[in-house]
């Protein structure tokens, strides 16, 4: 393991800042932020840019690694770049109220474009750069975009393909000219040329630009983001300056973010989280946004930047943890021993130290040593050595993974949010972090829970409307401003933390009237690496049963190490020792489910390991790998019945679709197992 990170161009700057009174500026700003309730005239992102260009003129606003070197833009330079582009946009004929699509990966040019677009009174619409042509066509058509700012030939080609269906579409601006010299440039412009034309037309348009910029107020639209939507067409969520700036301000104050934070922007620009972190909070606080060289270099760039404020979905943390574990397997015996020993200690006290709970002096000393030998170098390798505030959200994170990072001393927290709320609904305050809750209501957010468990919220971040879709707006947001999340959850009485159980539409009732929340139990089981997928049944029944899919990679690995021969998924899935292991997992999960009085009815009484993997080709899952409960329940009705009628074995024939579209069938005899459950009445294991 390497023990140092090279922050070459950067280390200099850091130490420089420490001895130089640049700090004074940021302090001033913090006070300014806190004291001005109405954000002191800073009612739009362009207004924030002007402030930052004065206040932090020489401080880096953006960095991007290109040609192997971190290139940077100061706030003063950023203002000039944005202004040149804004003038260029006016020159091209952009009107106030126009929608301009922004399509590309995280690059300073795109962030600057969004602010330039806002400056001329138009609305930026970031679009996922990997979306299919039809999806792009729908979005560009729906918002009636006249302009698009895109990255390169790939996006240009995609839009040229759909352009004939988009009658209102006029001009495209691209950043990377590679491969496009031969293109017809009547309605195609290179980004830097648009800026050049803007600079040349300064005298002509500057008064117009200033007038447009001054017209922006708290209620003008800041950005429109399309939600990916699991069902139906994507919806355009309109967020005002108030939504963005208030949310950014509140969240920044909650975590005491300053102008000295460093973030790495690598999550899709079309996602609300990136807009809040890389635009909202970056402009509010005046911190620096770093963009990776390419999506593949993200991990290296993360290490070079060493962000202080970091956001990642659980997937990123999982991947990192797996790679650490694999590398440790290959490390020398001495290093491995040391790693195991100190990680065990970190597991014991690391979380408590981070939460500020009392820990004995001896343990603290040992933890300090561990930090010197193991945790510090490890965090450094992961690029998380300087993280002061880290967030994960989007989906449930495995408690082991979560605790691993926290025990290292990384302040990883969870938040719960959605596009319609401008991200923040609940957040975990420092010192009150747990794997199974999503925290307390974020500042200025009100939350109420409906009778069916559905969570409603109201906040300054609550979206304005779904663009051109009053019906959906009305069905999501009521007259008083309460927004339905579609998620079910409850507040823990002791801590006041919110816990999310499931999608509200999936939550049902057991025969005895207690709550049935399948995902809650399924997620707990899926945190075991050998379990890939779980489907829980029990809505309207007196007890729950489950189908389980094993993870062929993990279980196959285990079988190899234990000399268990198997020829197929089916054979491995039916192996008694596999079933034993799964049974242990189910019983452990039952114990943890039973601790929750509201959900103890959801314990798994009987289960089976399916003879085939649930597959999108067979219609059992969506293409994004979400289980289709109804289809599964219907297709394997015989198995569900067998689980309920108490038989210990069942034979079944299942139709499967091969990848080339041919159909076939597999037959199997499955063993059904009973799992020990904890009786809630007297807390004694009952069979």
């Amino acid at each position, binding site marked *: 393991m390497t023990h140092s990170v090279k922050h070459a161009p950067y280390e200099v700057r850091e130490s420089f800042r420490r001895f130089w009174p640049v700090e004074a500026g940021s302090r001033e700003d913090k006070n300014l932020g806190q004291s001005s309730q109405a954000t002191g005239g800073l009612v739009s992102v362009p207004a924030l840019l002007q402030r930052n260009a004065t206040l932090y003129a020489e401080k880096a606003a953006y960095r991007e690694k*290109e*040609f*192997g070197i971190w290139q940077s833009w100061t706030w003063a330079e950023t203002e000039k770049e944005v202004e040149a582009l804004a003038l260029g946009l006016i020159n091209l004929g952009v009107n106030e109220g126009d929608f301009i699509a922004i399509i590309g990966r995280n690059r300073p040019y795109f962030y600057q474009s969004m602010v330039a677009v806002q400056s001329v009174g138009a609305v930026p619409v970031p679009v996922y750069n990997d979306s299919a042509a039809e999806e792009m066509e729908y979005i560009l058509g729906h918002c009636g975009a006249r302009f698009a700012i895109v990255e390169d030939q790939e996006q240009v080609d995609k839009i040229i393909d759909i352009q004939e269906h988009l009658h209102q579409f006029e001009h495209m601006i691209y950043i990377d000219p*590679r*491969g496009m*010299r*031969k293109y017809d440039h009547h309605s195609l412009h290179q980004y830097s040329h648009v800026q050049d034309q803007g600079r040349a037309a300064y005298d002509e348009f500057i008064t117009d630009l200033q007038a447009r910029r001054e017209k922006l107020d708290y209620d003008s639209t800041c950005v429109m983001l399309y939600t990916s939507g699991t069902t139906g067409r994507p919806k355009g969520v309109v967020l005002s300056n108030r939504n963005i700036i208030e949310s950014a301000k509140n969240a920044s104050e909650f975590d005491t973010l300053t102008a000295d934070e460093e973030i790495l922007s690598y999550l899709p620009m079309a996602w609300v989280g990136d807009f809040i972190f890389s635009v909202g909070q970056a402009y509010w606080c005046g911190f620096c946004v770093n963009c990776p060289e*390419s999506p*593949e*270099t993200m991990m290296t760039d993360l290490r070079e930047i060493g962000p202080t404020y970091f956001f990642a979905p659980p997937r990123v943390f999982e991947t990192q943890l797996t790679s650490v574990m694999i590398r440790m397997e290959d490390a020398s015996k001495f290093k491995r021993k040391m790693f195991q020993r100190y990680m065990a200690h970190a597991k014991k006290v690391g979380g408590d130290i981070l939460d500020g709970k009392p820990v004995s002096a001896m343990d603290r000393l040992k933890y300090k040593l561990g930090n010197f030998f193991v945790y510090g170098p490890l965090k450094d390798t992961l690029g998380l050595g300087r993280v002061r505030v880290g967030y994960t959200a989007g989906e449930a994170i495995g408690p082991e993974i979560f605790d691993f990072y926290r025990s290292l001393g990384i302040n990883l927290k969870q938040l719960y949010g959605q596009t319609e709320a401008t991200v923040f609904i609940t957040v975990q305050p420092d010192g009150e972090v747990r794997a199974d809750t999503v925290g307390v209501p974020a500042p200025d957010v009100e939350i109420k829970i409906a009778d069916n468990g559905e969570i409603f919220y109201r906040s300054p971040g609550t979206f304005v409307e779904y663009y051109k879709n009053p019906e959906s707006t009305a069905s999501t947001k009521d007259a008083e401003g309460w927004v339905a999340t579609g998620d079910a959850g409850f507040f823990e009485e002791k801590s006041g933390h919110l816990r999310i159980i499931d999608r509200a539409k999936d939550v049902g009732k057991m025969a005895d009237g207690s709550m049935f929340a399948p995902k809650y139990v399924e997620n707990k089981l899926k945190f075991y690496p050998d379990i890939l997928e779980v489907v829980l049944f029990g809505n309207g029944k007196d007890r729950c049963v489950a189908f389980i899919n094993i993870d062929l990679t993990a279980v196959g690995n285990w079988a190899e190490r234990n000399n268990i021969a198997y020829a197929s998924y089916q054979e491995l899935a039916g192996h008694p020792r596999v079933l034993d292991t799964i049974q242990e997992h189910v019983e452990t999960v039952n114990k943890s489910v039973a601790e929750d009085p509201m959900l103890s009815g959801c314990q798994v009484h009987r289960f089976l390991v399916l003879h085939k993997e649930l597959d999108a080709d067979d219609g059992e899952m969506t293409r994004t790998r979400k289980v289709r409960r109804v289809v599964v329940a219907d297709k394997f009705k015989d198995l569900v019945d067998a689980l309920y009628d108490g038989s210990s074995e069942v034979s079944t024939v299942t139709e499967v679709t091969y990848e080339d579209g041919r159909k076939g069938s597999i037959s199997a005899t499955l063993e059904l197992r009973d799992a020990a459950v904890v009786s809630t009445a007297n807390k004694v294991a009952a069979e």
Partner: protein
Amino acid sequence: MSTQESYVTDDGRTIGPTVMEMKNITLRFGGVKAITDISFDIREGEIRAIIGPNGAGKSSMLNVISGFYVPQEGEVWYKGKKRPPMRPYQVAEQGIARTFQNIALFEGMTVLDNVMTGRLRKMNASLISQAIWRGKAEKEEIENREAVEKIIDFLEIQAIRKTPVGRLPYGLKKRVELARALAAEPSILLLDEPMAGMNVEEKEDMSRFILDMNDEFGTTIALIEHDMGVVMDLSDRVVVMDYGKKIGDGTPDEVRNNQAVIDAYLGVAHD
């Protein structure tokens, strides 16, 4: 023949006059005739393909161009001058770079270092200057590194910049080899089976890089390739060889309809 008019192709590229001409080349290994009396030309800015069944003498032809083999008969004309017999490094100095059918990279070195070797011919600081890392050596290194970084960016291999080549999969190694050839800023680039052993997606990537190189840097490209689909899509003109002889020469369409070519590829009864 060597003073043709420039013309513009359908897709807007300018093809210049002849830059290299092979005149009646014959190459023998002992008693075996690898190449028999072949003549063809390569024009500036074009993508010229050499195709033919296995053992047709394509690689030998490429080796003649790059100076690996000296033909017993015939002349190689380059930029209007007859080229005397040369060593490969002298040919390289003239601005002809190549890749190999069987990748020839330094496995233990990083991608960056491998690509840097492509610029060795452009560095001439003294040994002492290199050793103490002052003056010219430092300046040269920075200039060349900058050029190399542009190529790394162009071929989208940033993520493997610091990875030892030995750890890379085949498709990426091919790309690194291309990067090294490109680093020499060649006026003619010789590619020996750039797509061999690649899957469809990798072939598409490689095709795009070849077209972009030709378009962006104006590099003249001569390539040998087995995949007929790729050849027909990429190249402006094609030479077809069989048993060491030239059996066809022309645009992809002309070649496709040439009876001798069809016979060579589909087979014909020999009397």
